[in-house]
């Protein structure tokens, strides 16, 4: 009896804490969405409100009348994220296949090498990367943010971990007997086998590329090439200083697609994190 009572008490504590944490997680976004519909005067009177107001279009007009251009940011971020994600998953799968399926002399050293360089954060190479890109006149080219994704050591590592127990060499052998070329075997047989791993890795690669600020901020100086996070940083500037409603609306516009995609794919994303997701 006593044990049951204790159990119930603990359960109450757990639910209270969890609900509080949930409120803290949602609250800033809720305030942001509500305030994006309120006028600057309304926000000045009370920065917090539970009910939306009707000034969204007005806020939008002010927002778009200045340098903030969400459509351009959205397009550039989409190009970079799709391009780099596609390259990263395809070539990481290919490299992982090379590491799992073939018995070559440098296989083990190559894998150890990948394990070592996994830990190098991109930021520490930025100065050299910037100088190199500047020298060949390729700053403000989105391709310079897409092509490096071909070499994604962390993703190769995860793809290999997935492929190692999954791939049966008998299937590969029988395809060879049927006369299939090695490259075709990879494209037609191995890639479909890797679909679950590709889906997980693609989501994380896309999100981290979409959210990345440091390298794009260094390379892109042309307003027409700005990505979404750089666009967002403009909202900090003096031109929006007193336009509270518009700033909240601008922030909401950048968050909305992410939240929509997240809620749609949350099951897979949480499962992916649990698998040992990649940290941004």
């Amino acid at each position, binding site marked *: 009896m006593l044990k049951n009572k204790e*159990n119930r008490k*603990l359960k109450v504590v*757990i*639910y209270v804490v*969890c609900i509080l*944490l*949930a409120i803290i*997680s*949602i609250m*800033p976004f809720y*305030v*942001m969405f509500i305030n994006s519909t309120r006028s600057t005067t309304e926000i000045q009177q*009370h*920065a917090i409100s539970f009910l939306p107001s009707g000034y969204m279009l007005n806020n939008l007009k002010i927002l778009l009348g200045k340098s903030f251009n969400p459509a351009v940011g959205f397009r550039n971020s989409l190009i970079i994220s799709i391009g780099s994600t596609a390259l990263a998953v395809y*070539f990481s799968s*290919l*490299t992982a*296949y*090379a*590491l799992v*399926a*073939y*018995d*070559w*002399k*440098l296989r083990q050293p190559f894998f150890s090498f990948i394990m070592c360089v996994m*830990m*190098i954060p991109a930021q*520490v*190479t*930025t*100065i*050299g990367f910037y*100088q190199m890109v500047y020298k060949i006149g390729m700053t403000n080219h989105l391709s310079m943010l897409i092509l*490096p994704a*071909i*070499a994604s050591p962390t993703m*190769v590592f995860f793809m290999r971990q997935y492929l190692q127990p999954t791939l049966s060499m008998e299937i590969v052998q029988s395809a*060879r007997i049927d006369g299939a070329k*090695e490259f075709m075997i990879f494209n037609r047989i191995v890639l479909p086998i890797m679909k679950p791993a590709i889906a997980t890795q693609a989501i994380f690669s896309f*999100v981290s590329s979409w*959210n990345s*600020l440091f390298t794009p901020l*260094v390379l892109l100086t042309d307003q027409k090439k700005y990505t*979404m996070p750089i666009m*967002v940083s403009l909202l900090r500037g003096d031109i929006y200083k007193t336009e*509270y409603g518009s*700033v*909240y609306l601008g*922030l909401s516009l*950048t*968050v909305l697609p*992410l939240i929509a995609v997240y809620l749609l794919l*949350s099951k897979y994303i*949480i499962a992916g*994190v*649990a698998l040992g*997701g990649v*940290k*941004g």
Partner: protein
Amino acid sequence: MRKVKNKKLSYARYGYYFSIPFAVAFLLFTLYPIVYTVIIGFTDLKGLGMTSFHFLKDDPFRNFKTVLANPSFKQALSNTVVMWVLNFIPQILLALLLTAWFTDKRSKIVGQGFFKVIFYMPNIITAATIAILFKALFGYPVGLENDILVSLKIVDKPVNLLINKTVARGIVIFIQTWMWYGYTMITLISGVLGISPEIFESAEVDGANRTQTFLYVTLPNIKTILLFTLVTSLIGGLNMFDIPKLFLLGGPDNATLTTNVFIYNQAFSGSYMYNRAAAASMIMLVIIAILSGILFMILDDKEEAELRRQNRQMEKKFKRRQKELARIEKAQADAGTGKGVDADAEK
């Protein structure tokens, strides 16, 4: 068998072919930039749009010395470490507490999936957006925080909390914790779910209570995952950029300046000192390499082997018990419903 092996050998070259794209991209976009960064660290390369440089002849290590003696860099390094440590401690404690609650079989928590989705959400949102959102929420004179303080009559007119160094740093720490505890929790939960359930059942049979089970069974078994979390968080923490850069631009008075913001400011503002920024980057790379090396050495110790041995023993003990139980049950069943079993067998 022999034939298969020969065939494999003749296919070996494809291993090289398929690694070429990765190798080329790595050489071009990672290795070359690293080497180039190291070289720039020993030169006089500075000024907007400059690409030509000369090596420092009198004192090759001048940039490194200047950076290490720079009070802003020292401040940035200490800020980065302090902010990481103070965000990691509450983050890991909160994640461990939630993990203990969510994986406890004795009190089944309903709605775990929902809580996981909500707790993880801040992590998926663009950090740049979050930094500016918090800037707006803590704004002066108009902001959420001031609105609450004034309506609760704690202060009678809006105060600008963000000019206070401790408060500014505290908010950056809060944002980092808030963004990452959900991630850490999910990783730890998956680690706990990977532990063989027999170990838990065995502990329960031995009479261990919740706290004991968590401290002596769960924690030692998720040591590897804890270390993985520590290393990734450390590397991420030492590279903190988006939040401190866009929240208060490293201010007030360098209170939230991190090493990465320092590097960015050195190279891409003011007098564009690429050489000093490169030297600072290399110092950070060395620090990161040493720290992760130490952490991995800790992982590779004898305790791990001892733990595995203990687990095996516990599993054995449990299996033996279950066998006994099954034997007893079977004996009882045979005695009680012996006829029924026979009848079924005849059919």
